[in-house]
């Protein structure tokens, strides 16, 4: 009888973002469907030194964690600043989007986003140098993410040589 008002039940923190995985095998509709049911989160802006244990501790605050897959540099096979967190239930992952996304881990504001589901191979960075794409192009110096971005680093090296 009584209505449950749409206007009152805003839950924007769990909305899917604009990002779509370009390597996803399937069409946009299929990807979105998976994102809306997913129990897996992509976690970005981690320090290269953040451990699986730290991620477990933080993300356990919204529910039991089923699995964590740490993101690796494709060449060096070392941590490159992202990971996947999978929960047993959708509700637990929604709470992570509401209350852990945008807070700090290892002093860095981390970002979580829905993921269509971990598949072998997705644990590797897709940047040309082996890490994440964002680390290819960024201009700032971030000691927790290998210093300068790859291109900026190469540029600095080139500049350095020129100075001689």
């Amino acid at each position, binding site marked *: *009888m*009584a*209505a*449950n*008002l*749409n*206007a*009152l039940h*805003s*839950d*924007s*923190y*769990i909305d899917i973002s604009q990002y779509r995985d370009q390597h996803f095998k399937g069409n946009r509709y299929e990807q979105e469907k998976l994102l809306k049911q997913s129990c897996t989160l992509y976690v970005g802006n981690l320090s290269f030194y953040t*451990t*699986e*244990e*730290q991620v*477990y*501790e*933080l993300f356990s*605050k*919204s529910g*039991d964690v089923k699995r*964590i*897959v*740490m993101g690796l540099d494709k060449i060096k096979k070392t941590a490159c600043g992202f990971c996947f967190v999978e929960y047993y239930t959708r509700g637990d992952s929604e*709470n992570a989007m*509401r*209350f*852990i996304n945008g*807070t*700090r*881990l*290892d*002093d860095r504001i981390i970002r979580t986003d829905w993921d269509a589901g971990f598949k072998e191979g997705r644990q590797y960075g897709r940047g040309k140098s082996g890490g994440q794409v964002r680390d290819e192009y960024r201009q700032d110096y971030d000691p927790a993410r290998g210093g300068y971005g790859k291109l900026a680093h190469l540029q600095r090296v080139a500049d350095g040589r020129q100075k001689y």
Partner: protein
Amino acid sequence: ESFLRHHYNNLGLPHKKRRASESIEIEDRLESLICRVGEKSTSSLESNLEGLAGVLEADLPNYKNKILRILCAVARLLPEKLTVYTTLVGLLNARNYNFGGEFVEAMVRQLKETIKSNSFYEAVYVVRFLSDLVNCHVIAAPSMVAMFENFVSVIQEEDAPQVRRDWYVYAVLSSLPWVGKELYEKKDVEIDRILNQIESYLKRRQKTHVIMLQVWTAEKPHPQEEYLDCLWAQIQKLKKDRWQERHILRPYIAFDSVLCEALQHNLPPFTPPPHSETAVYPMPRVIFRMFDYTDAPEGPVMPGSHSVERFVIEENLHCIIKSHWKERKTCAAQLLSYPGKNKIPLNYHIVEVIFAELFMLPFPPHIDVMYTTLLIELCKLQPGSLPQVLAQATEMMYLRLDSMNTTCIDRFMSWFSHHLSNFQFRWSWDDWSDCLTQDLEKPKPKFVKEVLEKCMRLSYHQRMVDIVPASFAPLLPVNPLFVYKYMDESSSTLPGYPVTIAIHNAIKNRANNEEILNVLKDVPNPNQGDDDDEVDSFNPLKIEVFLQTLLHLAAKSFSHSFSALAKFHEILKALTDSDEGKLHILRVLYDVWKNHPQMISVIVDKMIRTQIVDCAAVANWIFSPEMAHDFTRFYVWEILHSTIRKMNKHVQKIQKELDEAKEKLEKQHRRRDSGDEDDDKNSDEDGLLEEQIERLQEKVETAQSEQKNLFLVIFQRFIMILTEHLVRCETAGVDSNTPWYKNCIERLQQIFLMHYQIIQQYMLTLENLLFTAELDHHILAVYQQFCALQS
């Protein structure tokens, strides 16, 4: 003309389509307009209400039902804006008497529904809304009084549970701040009679449950009052003040000249729905207080604990959190823009209300981590003032740790460590150096120790060393390193040592399970005599040799350890076939990872999920003498509660599968009844399903039996160690109320509180088998407090 019509005229769709989607558009617009009234606006609230009343009145001919539904919903779901909406209804009633009548009827129907569906908090908001409608000249005062009289008559019901009576009393009392003055002016005799009945009820109701729900057991500085007692004191004071209430925002006052011209309606007679077995009344509460007028140094004074203002402020702040908890930025903004905030120390109220929820027993209304994030948002929005209040609160709670309930200390510790991790762990640790001189089992040093351990989990060991003064070194957690028994040459004399080398090599060379089991055959069994033939009996050394070596190889990370458990699952299952095996594997796990409780916790979790150990084994291990020295550490209870939760979820899951299968069968029968031709196919399908249902039924029974057994084991063990302690103290003539005892008895309370719904199924068994009259009265008291919770 309605500005809504202007809106839909622009849609430009073909006529028919336009009508349908117009309709939805208009309904959405109506919803939006009504929900948003009262929010920040360039116009005054009065002019917005006036405008909205005009729009709605114009749309009544076409959208009456929708408007009725929306208004009923906001009455139920937005209690913090109660008076805004009662004013709106008042204005509509003044313009359209029939609509006012229909709204009142709809609200009474909604009241019945919310009560019947156990939505008792919403039902209170509906009652409060109705009572404020008296102030808006929509409902006649005498009929409201009559409803209250009907509510209060529930007190006289024979055999009604106390929680039922409590709710009806609460519904009346909690409406009086809004309508007390008006009702008393019209019907003072009746109101006095109602209050007298309530008073004598409150005097005779039992309060055994209170102690289990208090955050602090000390009376000073703020008594932790039972919620009805506190509310009663507030209403008494309100009456003494001649019902003058100055805090509530009452927009209807500005419209008095319009509203008093309106005709009022009488509430239809309302009989409280009778008690039923399925009714679940709200749990009793204790009012959490940590601040008073002495705490806010400058600025407005905090209303006293027994002032009705305090009640209204707290109610409204709780309601705001209830409405917006999923969106922390909105929630923080709404809290900070509380109307009338300039007259009260709002930051103190907000912090107090948030901790009241976080520490609420048995459970906070919302997930713990929400409160951490909400406080961070509040600090962001008020960086010049809120962090100081929060620091002040933290300091106060630290000072009062001695009398804080253990469950609440857990939550305080979890919150504080997570909060610090968002602020570079900056804290004035030196302020707490008093704890360094105390015995480490005392609450303050224990708290600091657990905080640092939790902080370490979110960072790393060296960071902890860096953030605390050198004097705090004794409280630092140890470096979470693996302890390998068979480390080097010096351990070569240990029994089984050569086999550890062989296992190590076998694993590295990717030997298969058969090969590894062969290697393990060479491990002597310390439990067996030479002439004992049994090859497969429990061999603790075999378990130790294998598990120590395996976990050592996998010590690098959680993932490595999980991989190892998965890869050698078959072997582990074989080794832990017996109960003794299961217990021993946990012992070995502890031996190697005792410095890294987090690792123990996740490995135990995996072992349960992959059925290497069962829940009862974990419970027995936790209560075993070997774990006695860690018994009061937080991680142990984290593991036990996680274990119980897994058990509960397992039962729920199978129960759900069974229910789904039963439903499927029923659907099939219904289809057949409606004439499905193929009889053979039908009976085949039925047979399969029936078989499945039978299997699931068995599975459910097994699971439920395992669950019951788990709780019985836990309670039995508690009774054993508590009794032991009490007897020992009595014999020695010393006080039994040691820090260990307080911790242990509160852990027992915690089991009852955290799993009360499930434990209620076992009341008979518990009473007949375990919590009998012969038990020490200290232990029996916990059981009696638990029984009192829903009686």
